[in-house]
């Protein structure tokens, strides 16, 4: 297998596998947030900003995979 095709496959695997964890994690996060809002609808203005902030932190592991893929392809 030549280097170019190995690079492309490696980049695809890096992004693909990294996205699994982030997808599951953000799904759990969103479902718990919806549950909390459903239980107590007045608290929505406090939960929504916290939801976005924690999503940004959870998403970061898949961003690491994306950065590695970009470095493989374009670095």
């Amino acid at each position, binding site marked *: 297998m030549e280097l170019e095709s190995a690079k492309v496959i490696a980049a695809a695997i890096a992004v693909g596998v990294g996205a699994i964890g982030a997808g599951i994690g953000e799904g759990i996060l969103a479902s718990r947030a919806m549950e909390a809002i459903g239980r107590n609808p007045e608290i929505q203005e406090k939960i929504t900003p916290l939801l*976005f*902030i924690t999503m*940004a*932190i959870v998403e*970061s592991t898949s*961003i*690491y995979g*994306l*950065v590695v893929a*970009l*470095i493989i392809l*374009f*670095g």
Partner: protein
Amino acid sequence: MIPKRKSSKLTLLFVGAILLLSFLLIKDAPHDGGVHVAIAPEVLFSIGGFPVTNTLFWGIFLSLVLIAMALRLRSTLQEIPRGFQNLAEALIEKFFDFTNTITGSIEKTKKIFPLAFSLFLFILFANLFAFLPGASAMTFHGEPLFRAVVTDYNLVLFMTLTTVIIIQIVAIAVNGPFGYLKKFINFSSPLNFILGIMDTVGELSKVLSMSFRLFGNIFAGEVLVAVMLSLMPYFVPLPFMLIGLLSAVIQAFVFSLLTIVFITMASEKASHGA
């Protein structure tokens, strides 16, 4: 309602004129069909052997803009705020109260707040400058003149290193140098030794995780928008630019939030035992 209708008609006319002009004026095909993506920023010119990249140029420009805004605000302070001073005061107060809820004490907040708010403002403005229309079209001797400042990993790495070094300094100041070292090199039991090594790795991983989060979000957003623009330039890149705008604000906020949290954690006296 009549003035509102006039202005919306004018807006529609304006947008239609721009679309028509772009249809007529864009005649040349893209060079190779691919997207020009480079992780390292492009060098514009060199001053006596020191290469000036486009992100350096825009970083200095952005810093000058922020300094000018701050100086103007300070020189025209009024008792009853109006206009720009009002906006700045609201932002600063809100961020100060938010920092207070995390640190828990006013003295700590007064020391942490300047660093955190400066980081927040700098990253926020740097990301928002990327959305100025027409900026990406300027070129300088064939290299694109504009590039979002945060897509330069040098800048992100050194901002993160500054923050992490400040965290270590705060930990040394609160615990004393030997108390600080005892956290990492601990021979009291094998478990504590392994925990000490993992703490060291944890500190290094803070650098990597914070810098990659900021760099990756903004750079990936730019690459995505560039690819979408090369595929279908009308209307389709808009959702990606919206996500880029949202993540620009959120990433600036998360970076400063993590700074505050880590410095607060480091400033608490280390309790004995894990």
